[in-house]
């Protein structure tokens, strides 16, 4: 990953629209409880980390797998509004296309 060259506009949009996403400590509680994650390769913790580092392409590929069930929101120890986070990501991608 070349952080210097990666596009950080997506990350900036996410931080602005879902500021609680900045509080993630990477514990993986969200991924452990994730309904989609138990059926597919979807990993919500990794997804938002990828966006934060500007690895947008890989993040976009898996975003649609989220079913918005909200279980991740219930377990997050840092109070990240994961639903808002996912919606902000979808919104950004939608705007770009």
């Amino acid at each position, binding site marked *: *990953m070349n952080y210097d060259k990666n596009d950080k506009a997506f990350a900036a949009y996410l931080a602005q629209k879902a500021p609680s996403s*900045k*509080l993630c*400590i990477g514990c993986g509680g969200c991924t452990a409880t994730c309904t989609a994650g138990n059926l597919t390769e979807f990993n919500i913790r990794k997804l938002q*980390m990828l966006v934060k*580092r500007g*690895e947008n392409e890989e993040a976009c590929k898996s975003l649609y797998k989220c079913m918005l069930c909200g279980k991740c929101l219930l377990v997050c120890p840092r109070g990240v509004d994961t639903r808002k986070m996912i919606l902000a990501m979808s919104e950004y991608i939608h705007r770009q296309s």
Partner: protein
Amino acid sequence: MNVAIIGAGPAGCEAAFRLAEEGIQVDLIEKENVTGGNLNNWYQLFPDRKYAGELNAILRNQLNHPQIRLHLNTEAVRMERKGKGKFAVQLSDHSLLECDALLVTTGFKLFDAQRKEEYGYGIYDNVITSVELENKFMNQQLTTSTGEVPQRIGFIHCVGSRDEKICNYHCSKLCCITAVKQAIEVREMLPEAEILCFYMDMRMFGPGYEEMYREAQEKYNIKFVRGRLSEASENQNKQIIIKAEDTLIGKPLRMTLDLMVLMVGMEASEGSKKAATQLQLKQAPNGFIQPADPHYGNNRTNEEGIFIAGCSSAPMNLTDTLADARSAATALTQWLKHNCKHKNE
């Protein structure tokens, strides 16, 4: 009853005052021309951002006590046990002190970042240590070696700690919270800069620390990347190019920094090693002086009448150092009272 204290850092100063308040005669020996030890290198303290100078002044003022004799610019050249439960301390000014007990408060030494050669300290101008950053805060000037305002600053945790390659297995404990504090201070000076911390674990052990970490993320927009720096190089613009793995996404990462801050860890000081050798004190494998018991004998050593406080026994924050000094004063007072009564019988 009199006690000689070796080292007038925060632990030595606090213990001297507490012992003096108990009516014990104290000789406080300091090799530098000023008290405070490593505290003199700090600008503000975590977690309340108190000025280090403020705390230093409080500790220094307490030494104006009739029971305390402060020996500045003086080194304890030779420490030994004499007969009848007495100790003799030969000072560098050729005087000889005799005392009933010894308190070793020789503190710590900062890790020499040049030993971690692959990080480029001493080779690349824009690689500095956390202590040098404190100095920049004191002068309220934060620029790169070429005089520019840094746009991207990286803090590297665990430099000289938790690293078998430089023979330090231990965690220095304070560098994590120091990095958080310094990142916030940098943010206040440079609102537009990108600030990143590279960590292995965030060890927020003290009251208010985790809260400060959280605030650093949310309010101050500090980014935290879990991964240890493997190496650094320099480009033609004197910027630092670093390599690490972002372990939370499982990808190697390359990044250019304008300024890289190495969070240097703590090692046993030369003074501690000297005291341990001369007085036959047990040392832990990392060189710090080993307490007699980790729970109820944390200020006693394997040698009767010789006590320890503060960072001579382990990396410690100032809160714990001062508490440890007070605890040592209590242990010493009890021991002296018991011992001197016994001698008089």
